[in-house]
């Protein structure tokens, strides 16, 4: 594009020599490339304004807030007091650390489950089955409802517990329940509840895995089969390496999603402190601790996965993708670090 634009330049350049008057009158004459860039700037300017106003400025202000103390709300006068807000979060506040740990515990349970389950489901859908499109839609629909207040509301109504009630005797007869005892049945109930919520949260992951699976060339499977590989070996040595870009994306997406989800206890705690109690500085400090933690975990996942990514195969995927006009997106996490 840029080279193409440069070409007309020599043709344009003699123009001012021929007619110097309009150029002189109109101020300065722009060459085509600068003109293009200016046009681009005009088109992108609404976005730039939005980002500056509602992302860059708030981020810098919140960083300053977290290290300071508001002396006057009018005009936002901030006195820097160093690390006091951070120290308060860890040493003074009674609830911060337990909430943090609770959040980590929640994520630790659901995170691997989401990834594994969505991979399994994606592989099942990727089989040659009837109504593939229907299954795709059904697994994706919870995403439409499962974000925000509706999900919260359903959880309050006890969907995760009530929906698959194993202890009420309809699904499993009473004598079986009494045989196993209530402790085990409670455990089963909890597991089923977690399964439901996990399934509800994995619509996007399934689609991402599916797109990864569909971009694997069938020739690879054929070659592996001819060489006598078992299905298990094919899974670990063909499928997993080939979808590793999608796997990475999914790992990071799921992580970010679960940390920024409305059901996350940490966020509501920050929210309560920042707004209901009006302690903006403390809220900002906790927010930044939280963000640092999330960033750290994402970086960790990234570092682990980077060593694992099979670059040659990834190139193969890319080539195949280009041929079939599939966009690969592994540039997203790579560029951000």
């Amino acid at each position, binding site marked *: 594009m840029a080279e193409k634009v440069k070409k007309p330049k020599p043709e344009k350049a003699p123009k001012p020599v021929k007619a110097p008057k309009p150029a002189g009158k109109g101020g300065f004459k722009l060459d085509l490339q600068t003109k293009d860039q*200016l*046009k681009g*700037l*005009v*088109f*992108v300017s*609404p*976005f730039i*304004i*939005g*980002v500056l106003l*509602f992302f860059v*400025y*708030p*981020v810098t202000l*919140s960083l300053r*807030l977290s290290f300071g103390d508001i002396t006057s709300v009018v005009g936002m006068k901030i006195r820097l007091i160093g690390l006091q807000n951070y120290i308060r979060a860890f040493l003074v506040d009674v609830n911060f650390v337990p909430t943090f740990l609770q959040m980590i515990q929640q994520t630790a349970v659901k995170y691997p489950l989401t990834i594994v389950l969505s991979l399994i489901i994606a592989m*099942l*859908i990727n*089989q040659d*089955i009837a109504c593939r*499109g229907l*299954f795709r*839609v059904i*697994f*994706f*629909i*919870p995403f*439409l409802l499962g*974000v*925000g*207040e*509706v999900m*919260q*509301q*359903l959880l*309050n109504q*006890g969907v995760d517990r*009530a*929906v*698959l*009630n194993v202890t009420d005797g309809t699904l499993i007869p009473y004598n079986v329940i009494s045989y196993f005892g209530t402790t085990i049945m409670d455990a089963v109930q909890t597991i089923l509840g977690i399964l*439901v919520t996990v*399934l509800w949260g994995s619509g996007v992951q399934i*689609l991402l895995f599916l*797109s990864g699976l569909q971009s694997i060339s069938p020739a690879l499977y054929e070659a592996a089969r001819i060489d006598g590989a078992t299905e298990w070996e094919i899974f670990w040595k063909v499928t997993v390496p080939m979808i590793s870009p*999608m796997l990475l994306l999914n790992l990071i997406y799921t992580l970010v999603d679960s940390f*920024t989800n*409305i059901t996350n206890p940490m966020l509501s705690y920050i*929210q309560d402190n920042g707004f209901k109690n009006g302690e903006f500085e403390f809220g*900002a400090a906790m*927010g930044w601790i*939280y*963000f640092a933690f999330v*960033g750290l975990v994402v970086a960790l996942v990234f570092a682990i996965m980077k060593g694992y990514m099979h670059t040659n195969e990834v190139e193969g995927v890319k080539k195949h993708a280009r041929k079939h*006009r599939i*966009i690969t*997106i592994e540039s*997203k996490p790579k560029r*951000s670090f």
Partner: protein
Amino acid sequence: MIKIKWFRGQWLHITFAKIALYTVMLCLVAFTALPLIYLVSTAFKPMDELFVYPPAFFVKHPTTVNFSDLVVSLGSSTVPFLRYAFNSIVVTLTIVFLTVVVSALGAYSLVKFKPPGGVFLFNLILMALMFSPHVTRIPSYLVVNSLGLINTYGALILPNIAVAYNIFLMKQFVEQYPDELLEAARIDGAGEFRIFMQMVMPALKPAWATLVVMSFVSNWNDYFSPLIYVTSQAMKTLPLALQTISGGAAAVSVGRAGATAAATFCMTVPTVVIFTAMQGQVMETMVYSGIKE
């Protein structure tokens, strides 16, 4: 393997593996769909069925009393339910429209015109993708406040337009659009805006169809903006109204259970409608692009 004679003289082959596969799939689908069915059937349950213990799954005597309850009980309060619904619709539709225009224009010019600072802006976008919006809630509030937008539709709309994810998604699609077509149009004398509207946008229909659904869903369910930027009841949107009806997260008020169920149901309907309308487009692009908010 079982062979069954199918119509038109074809044979249907049923293998054990196939049966197992379908069984597993159906179980998973049931798992996924159960809460949905529960949501729908609860909305139509009469009062006595709502409090059956253990909760019944399907409704036995469906009624629409919950919906009239919802409208009536809220109609008697200062702000009718329809006002919340109206707010939600206005805000969400405006955001969706503006964000599609801004993101498409921005992505198009970032990719095709390469303005100065474009690379920096793109890196900023990537950073914003990782950034939890909740950290910046408080300063965003200050920005909105200093713009004098508190308690207006502007407060609900403006902060949600320039979303990093949206421009990122559009950018992935714009990059595929061939430069040759643009050059051909320029040589034929089309203006830049005309090229954008008549050539680029139609070609990017899958991209902005995806964007419409994504943006609609997330903004329709957006709980934080109305909670923070708006204090007057008359300006609040459905997610907040839902919380008001249910009487907060902790208290499950007995009298309101029916109305809550109906309200929850009402809230999910528009997202499903939008999704089914755009479904064909979105599913294609989702599978081929693999991007999501």
